C-alpha cells in the first residue's frame, strides 16, 4: 500500500512505438514521393512543350547528353560486331540481288538525267515558281541517336541536336535511306523525333509514278500504309512513295517535296472498304538508326 501511495516517476509516454513509427515514416516517404511524381506528371501533361518544368527538363537532358553519348560509344563496337556477323550471313544472297538492282538503276539513271534536264528547261520557259526543294534548299543538321523507342507506347527517338543547332518544332528528319519522322519536342541540345512508325504520325505522300496522293500512316509489322487512296486511283506494287510537299501556299506542309519514304509492296481492296489498302515498306530502318539529319531550311523565310 505504501508503494501505491508513493509518487512514482512514470516514463514519458512515447507517441508511437518504434515499429509503428518506422511504418509511419515508410508510408509517409511513399506518399510524398507519389504526390511529387503526380505533381510533375500533371504539370508535364498540361504543358509538354513549354514552361519552367520543360526548361528544367531540357537543361537536365543537356546535362545527361555526355553520358548518353558515352554509352552509345561504348556500345558501338559490340553493335558493329553484331551487324558485321549478321551482314556476313546474308551477304551472298544479297549480292546477286544488288547486282541486278544496280543494272536496273543504271539504265534508269540515264533516263532520269535527261528527264531532269528537260524539266529544268520547261521550268525556265514557264517561269515556274517552286517552294524550297529537298535536298538543295535545306541544311542537314547531322545528329547521333541518343535513345531509342523502348516499347509499345513510344515510337520516338532522342537525337543529339536541339534549338542551339537550329532545329525547331516539326523539322523533318531523314536518314541516309529516307524519311524518318519529324521533331515533336525541342530541347536546348537534344530533340525528340516522332518516327513514321508512331500511330500519331501522318505524312502527306504521293506515288512518284502515278501522282496519287495519300497519307502515310503506321501499319502492321514494321510496314507503313498509304491511307486515303480512293478505289478509282491506280497504285502498283513497286511504286516509289515520296513526300507530297506543299500543294497550297496558304497551307504549307511540314515536309518538303521529294523525300523518299518507301516502296509499295502490296495493294489490296475489299468491297466494304472505302479506300485502297496500300502497304509500303519504309526505306529507313527505324529500328537500327545510328545517326540522322534534321532538315533546317537554308533560308529561314522559306517554308516547305
Amino acid at each position: 500500500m505504501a508503494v501505491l501511495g508513493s509518487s512514482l516517476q512514470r516514463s514519458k509516454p512515447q507517441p508511437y512505438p518504434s515499429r509503428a513509427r518506422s511504418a509511419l515514416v515508410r508510408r509517409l516517404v511513399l506518399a510524398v514521393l507519389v504526390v511529387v511524381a503526380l505533381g510533375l506528371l500533371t504539370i508535364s501533361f498540361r504543358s509538354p512543350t513549354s514552361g519552367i518544368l520543360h526548361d528544367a527538363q531540357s537543361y537536365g537532358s543537356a546535362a545527361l547528353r555526355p553520358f548518353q553519348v558515352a554509352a552509345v560509344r561504348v556500345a558501338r563496337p559490340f553493335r558493329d560486331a553484331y551487324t558485321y556477323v549478321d551482314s556476313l550471313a546474308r551477304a551472298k544472297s544479297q549480292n546477286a540481288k544488288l547486282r541486278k538492282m544496280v543494272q536496273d538503276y543504271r539504265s534508269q539513271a540515264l533516263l532520269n538525267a535527261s528527264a531532269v534536264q528537260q524539266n529544268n528547261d520547261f521550268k525556265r520557259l514557264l517561269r515556274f515558281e517552286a517552294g524550297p526543294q529537298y535536298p538543295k534548299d535545306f541544311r542537314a543538321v547531322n545528329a547521333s541517336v541518343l535513345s531509342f523507342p523502348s516499347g509499345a507506347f513510344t515510337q520516338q527517338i532522342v537525337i543529339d541536336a536541339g534549338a542551339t543547332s537550329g532545329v525547331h518544332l516539326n523539322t523533318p528528319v531523314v536518314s541516309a535511306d529516307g524519311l524518318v519522322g519529324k521533331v515533336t519536342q525541342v530541347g536546348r541540345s537534344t530533340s525528340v523525333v516522332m518516327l513514321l512508325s508512331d500511330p500519331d504520325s501522318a505524312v502527306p505522300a504521293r506515288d512518284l509514278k502515278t501522282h496519287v496522293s495519300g497519307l502515310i500512316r503506321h501499319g502492321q509489322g514494321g510496314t507503313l500504309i498509304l491511307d486515303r487512296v480512293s478505289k478509282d486511283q491506280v497504285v502498283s506494287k513497286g511504286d516509289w512513295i515520296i513526300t507530297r510537299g506543299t500543294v497550297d501556299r496558304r497551307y504549307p506542309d511540314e515536309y518538303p517535296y521529294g523525300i523518299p519514304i518507301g516502296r509499295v509492296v502490296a495493294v489490296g481492296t475489299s468491297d466494304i472498304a472505302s479506300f485502297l489498302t496500300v502497304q509500303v515498306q519504309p526505306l529507313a530502318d527505324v529500328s537500327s538508326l545510328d545517326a540522322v539529319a534534321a532538315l533546317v531550311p537554308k533560308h529561314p523565310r522559306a517554308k516547305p
Partner: protein
Amino acid sequence: MTFADGLKAAALLFVAAIAQVSIFSQLHVFGGVPQLVLVTLVAVSLLRGAVAGAVAGFFAGLVVDTATLGMLGLTSLVLTVSGYWIGRYGETTGRDRGHAPFLSVAAVTFLYAFGVLLVEFMLGERAPAGPVMRALFPTIVMNLVLTAPVYALVRFLLRPRERADYATEVQLLG
C-alpha cells in the same frame, strides 16, 4: 541505409538508367526490351528495403524521363510504387530466399507494364494493351536473364544488412 550506400545505389541506378535509354532500349527481341533499370531497382529494393526502394525508383524514373524528354513523373510514379512494394517483400517474406530476386523481377515486370498502361490510359494517351501483352513474355524472360548478374553486382556493392536492421511488422509469437 548509410550515406555511402545511398551514393552507390544512386550511381548504380544512374548508370542503369543511361544504359537503358541509350543501349538496352534498342535490343528488341520478339518485341520485348530488356529493362536493366527495373532489374537494378529490384536488386536495390530487396537489399535495402521499402524506403530506399521508393526513393531509388523515384530517382531512376526521373533520370529516364529527363533523358528521353518524356512525360516527367510518369516513370517515377510507377517505379516508386514498384520499388516500395519490392522493398516490403524483401523486408518481410522475401529475405534470404534464393528465388526472391527472380520472383520479384518477374512480378514487377508484369506490374510495371500494366502500371504504365494504366497511367497512360488514365491520361487519355495511347494505351495499346495488345502490343504490351505480346511483348510481356519476352521482356520477362530477358529481365530474368539479367537478374542473376545484376543482383550479384548490386549485392557485392551493397552488402546485405544484418537481420536485426530489417524493419518488419511480422512478429514471431511464443
